[in-house]
């Protein structure tokens, strides 16, 4: 093999290996990219993970949005978990307060993390929480029960086509994970 060829081989190999390493990185870059895309495009029903601030909006009394609440627990979670009210009607821009009820049915202290999801996904970006139990882990002692608060408002920019928003929480048992801090 001539020297020249050896050189151009090495250059090409370098480029190709760099390409492969780059694509390995790209695979991981897809993770934040996915979150950003979901958030920007308002798809996938993800809501924000931290409190939004409430600007006193003019409340749009001409529209009424039905808000539905759902609560689910993962199979290994020994809690009872349900919304205080299953359905309510609110005006866009109005600050609303409700809560979920949780009870630890087991004889062990347990830590739970609730993960929210809004349907239809396009509405998720307009569903804003100023306070939510899902921002933090929840700990319940054996047999303890608690009221988990939720304060939210619907952004008046919500597209007209959406008249109902369903907020669903899934509660996960994270006792064994030893997490500290919030989801983020």
């Amino acid at each position, binding site marked *: 093999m001539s020297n020249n060829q050896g050189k151009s*081989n090495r250059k090409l190999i370098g480029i190709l*290996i760099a390409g492969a390493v780059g694509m390995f990185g790209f695979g991981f870059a897809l993770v934040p990219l996915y979150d950003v895309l979901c958030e920007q495009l308002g798809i996938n029903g993800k809501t924000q993970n931290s409190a939004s601030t409430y600007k006193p909006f003019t409340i749009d009394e001409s529209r009424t949005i039905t808000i539905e609440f759902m609560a689910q627990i*993962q199979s290994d979670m020994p809690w009872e978990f349900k919304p205080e009210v299953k359905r309510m009607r609110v005006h866009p821009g109005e600050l609303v307060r409700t809560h979920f009820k949780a009870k630890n049915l087991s004889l062990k202290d347990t830590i739970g993390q609730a993960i929210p999801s809004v349907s239809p996904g396009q509405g998720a970006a307009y569903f804003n929480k100023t306070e939510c139990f899902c921002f933090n882990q929840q700990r319940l002692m054996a047999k303890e029960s608690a009221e988990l608060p939720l304060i939210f408002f619907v952004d008046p920019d919500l597209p007209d086509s959406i008249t109902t928003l369903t907020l669903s929480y899934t509660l996960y048992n994270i006792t064994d994970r030893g997490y500290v801090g919030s989801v983020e």
Partner: protein
Amino acid sequence: MNTLTREAEPNMEIGQVEAASDHQDEHQQHPSGIKRWLFTTNHKDIGTLYLWFSFIMFLTGGAMAMVIRAELFQPGLQLIEPNFFNQMTTIHGLIMVFGAVMPAFTGLANWLIPMMIGAPDMALPRMNNWSFWILPFAFTILLSSLFMEGGGPNFGWTFYAPLSTTYSPDSTALFVFSIHIMGISSIMGAINVIVTIVNMRAPGMTWMKLPLFVWTWLITAFLLIAVMPVLAGVVTMVLTDKYFGTSFFDAAGGGDPVMFQHIFWFFGHPEVYIMILPSFGIISAIVPTFSRKRLFGYASMVYATSSIAILSFLVWAHHMFTTGMPVFAELFFMYCTMLIAVPTGVKVFNWIATMWRGSLTFETPMLFAIAFIILFTIGGFSGIMLAITPADFQYHDTYFVVAHFHYVLVTGAIFSIMAAAYYWLPKWTGNMYDERLGKIHFWCSVISVNVLFFPMHFLGLAGMPRRIPDYAVQFADVNQIVSIGGFAFGLSQFIFLALVIKCIRGGEKAAAKPWEGAEGLEWTLPSPAPYHSFTTPPEIK
């Protein structure tokens, strides 16, 4: 005709004399016995290793398919536990994709690319040795996980989270490492192919003179470099989610299981084209030979292949129509998927146009090639049905999908590999294979494969889900037919094994160019091809 008779006289060939002296070289420089194979850096030896490895994997994965079809012969659970059934479907898929089809193509690339472009060997012979020899380790690790407590991988070849994370067996780490090794092997193979094609073409072998097999492999190699690292990334995430407490795919920790599917299929759809583009190259070599015409639309073949490769990055979510994507995404992926059918149609059209008014003969390679064209197209059609988003809501995760991908992979990829083996066996071994046995193998395979896979379309349309060990009684009759087809197809492959062994052992001596209509540099070398292909670059007309 003149050249034909000259080449048919082996003693008169100058190449043959060179080959003989090469042969002596070989004994001086290369160890013999097992060491020859362990330390070989020769593209032909490595090609042979890949091909045999692939065939062994084909039989191993095939044995698992037989277990699956035996269990599904009747409704109810009779032979194996559901968990073991799931391990069989998972490892069957992994072995066929990563152990049978991909190494077979790499083997063909090793054997053929240097001969086709007029090079002495592959550009990076030592890396070539490595990329083969790590493969047996990968599959030993994968297969040995079956014997661990808790069993081997049981989450399907697509290893969706959380099946592969929260609910997977303890052996999952072995699965992950074996995939890593397979990925490294493929990437090294791809780098080698690209460097060889870019830097080692004989003078005068311009881009638009490259045989299509070389073109399609070049594009495949780029696909491999683009997506195998993504696969490595996604298995790594599975590994850390399962063992190190990360939450890439775990909603409880802020991750998202649907994201797994996006990343996996970002790899997965280009992967299915990795498994079919080299086939296109093979068919484009065989059809002109036995039609005794030039390939119709060479340039359009090159462009079609490239556009398929580019489009393959834009269609991954057609595997995810039922995950609840927004409507605009469903439509985007639906239209992009259908768009792929256009360049694919161009190819099928070109093959048919090549045969049109040709003087056709039907030797075994041609039979497999024609079967490929017809049956692959059937697979393409079922693909288009699946691409229709609303229809896919019915077909998804049923036997219809199983029928689709077996038409494109078995009667597509595998048939093309068989066609290639028949076509180039005389060049590899120096002997003609037994044509009668070849025809028997072809007819047994083509009939049984349709008995095996065609009724699966109906099972799927009637609602039989895929990946289940038991089913409702109304599916019993059709499943019985399918299983019988399966056993027949499995057994037919032993005819092929017998034929190859017979051909290696001896038989009618093959001329340098055993197919009168063949074109390409590999046919200017004597048969069997000398140990080193073109020590001096050939002249290209």
